[in-house]
């Protein structure tokens, strides 16, 4: 079986700050593998351990996503090889543009039976790249996936629905978005990390992929800082829990919140 895990190398907005003029300052942020991508890799590894599979990481983005440390970080988590499209024209790419690029990369790899992605990227959190990707490939997509077993062409997928879990059978290649809590990713071992630098890395030229152009152009006209509700920030003394409880309830009642 050939499994592609689409991953992202990017910064966590927790480390960014927004300036008064609404622009975002990323200077203190250090890039890493997007938070939920290791969950996708974990699901892929479990399937590969059960059924035998080649695990191929694919990523597309601006300069930096192809840095050796980025590839090693992905490979060190258990991928066999990675395919990278690193092009600065992708810096402002929208979800659909990225999905189209990933689709071409997957076609280039060929013979892919399954694509697994994380729930969403830590920075954009759109949850749309996997679904647009599936649309580009003409494959079924399922989100909120908590487990995947089976073989190529006969996958068995568990996904969350309100009130429970649904089990689906998929008869062909598919795109699955793993739910954020589908699995606790195993921590990479020291040997795995040291071996990562020796695994194959393939760089694809964006122009050579001939990705069909998008029909929509997005232009950012302005940035602003969202209005945030001012919070009182009042701390209630908790030395005596009973008194703290009373004080809180009184304060909430007086404020009309209770």
């Amino acid at each position, binding site marked *: 079986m050939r499994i592609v895990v689409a991953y992202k190398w990017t910064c966590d907005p927790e480390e960014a700050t927004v300036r008064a003029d609404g622009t975002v300052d990323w200077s203190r942020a250090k890039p890493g593998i997007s938070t939920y991508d290791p969950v996708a890799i974990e699901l892929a590894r479990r399937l590969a351990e059960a059924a035998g599979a080649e695990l191929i990481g694919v990523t597309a983005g601006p300069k930096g996503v192809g840095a050796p440390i980025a590839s090693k970080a992905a490979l060190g988590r258990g991928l066999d090889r990675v395919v990278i499209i690193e092009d600065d024209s992708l810096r402002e790419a929208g979800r659909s543009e990225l999905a189209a690029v990933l689709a071409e990369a997957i076609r280039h790899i060929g013979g892919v039976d399954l694509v697994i992605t994380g729930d969403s990227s830590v920075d954009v959190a759109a949850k749309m790249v996997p679904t647009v990707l599936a649309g580009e490939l003409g494959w079924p997509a399922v989100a909120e996936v908590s487990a995947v077993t089976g073989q190529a062409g006969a996958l068995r997928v568990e996904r969350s629905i309100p009130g429970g879990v649904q089990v689906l059978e998929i008869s062909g290649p598919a795109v699955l978005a793993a739910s954020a809590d589908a699995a606790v990713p195993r921590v990479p071992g020291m040997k795995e990390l040291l071996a990562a630098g020796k695994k194959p890395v393939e760089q694809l030229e964006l122009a050579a992929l001939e990705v069909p152009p998008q029909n929509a152009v997005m232009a950012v006209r302005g940035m602003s800082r969202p209005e945030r509700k001012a919070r009182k920030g009042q701390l209630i003394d908790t030395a005596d*829990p009973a008194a703290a409880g009373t004080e809180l309830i009184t304060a909430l009642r007086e404020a009309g919140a209770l």
Partner: protein
Amino acid sequence: MSINAWIVVGDQPTVGNLITVARSLGGPVGAVVAGPRSVAETVAASGLDKVVWCSAPDDVPAEASAPAVADTIASDPPRVVLAGRNPGERVLLGAAAARLRAAVLTGARSVSIDGGDVIVVNAVFGDLAEETVAVSGPVALLLDGGPVPSASDGGAPIEEVSGAPLGLKVVETRTSGFDEVDLNAAHRVIGIGRGLKAREDLAMIEDLAHAINAEIACSRPVAEGLNWMGKDRYIGSSGARISPQLYLAIGISGQLQHMVGVTGAETIVAINSDPNAAVFTQTDYGLVGDLYQLVPAITAALK
């Protein structure tokens, strides 16, 4: 008639907000439904200009109708496609966006038309900032679906299409045994986080919830098997976003990914043993201490 805005609907007819937004842009509004026929009927009853229902066998999930949805929309290409924040709808919207080669935006605070462009004020990076984006060409928007639309006069009949569905079918459904909840309808919500050590401790939270008539929710852990409640109770950037009157964050550290789900709350109270927890910078009332003592104390103070 040339549809200006298509609404993509899955298993639930909770698309009231989508209809409102679509209508505000002017022009004919259509809906393409890939769920049960009853959903198509509810949507049609709200009075839209076109309603298409993609029928499929019973054991086939809505996602299997993605090509039929994309075909329907592509045959009458709109300016805007809208869908609600549910997994099924995201898949259908993705198929439509791919077919239209449309821009995709998922944080729209407002949508309007200005000349030839669709103008979207879009929240970015977990609500850190907002950008005003002008889109030339088709745009696909993921929005809060809103309530079930109420019936009104007029409206188009349902057109049924049955495209070949993709090869996926439901083989088993397991109920979690958890009650379903609509957090958006709750006036008061208690959120629990990692500070709560054991499932048995939920009883203490339930006592408090009962005393103030609150729903219980949780911050989304990147952890498996903390299966204490249904996933519809997760609040955060990858879960529900709510604006209750009162939100109590208990044992929650206050990370961006969770707090973005509750920034609209009227009043926020937090209890956490870590005085440096980020949550305390975003609360109206903060209590630094042991929740195992404070929660019962608060419940007692209500009696």
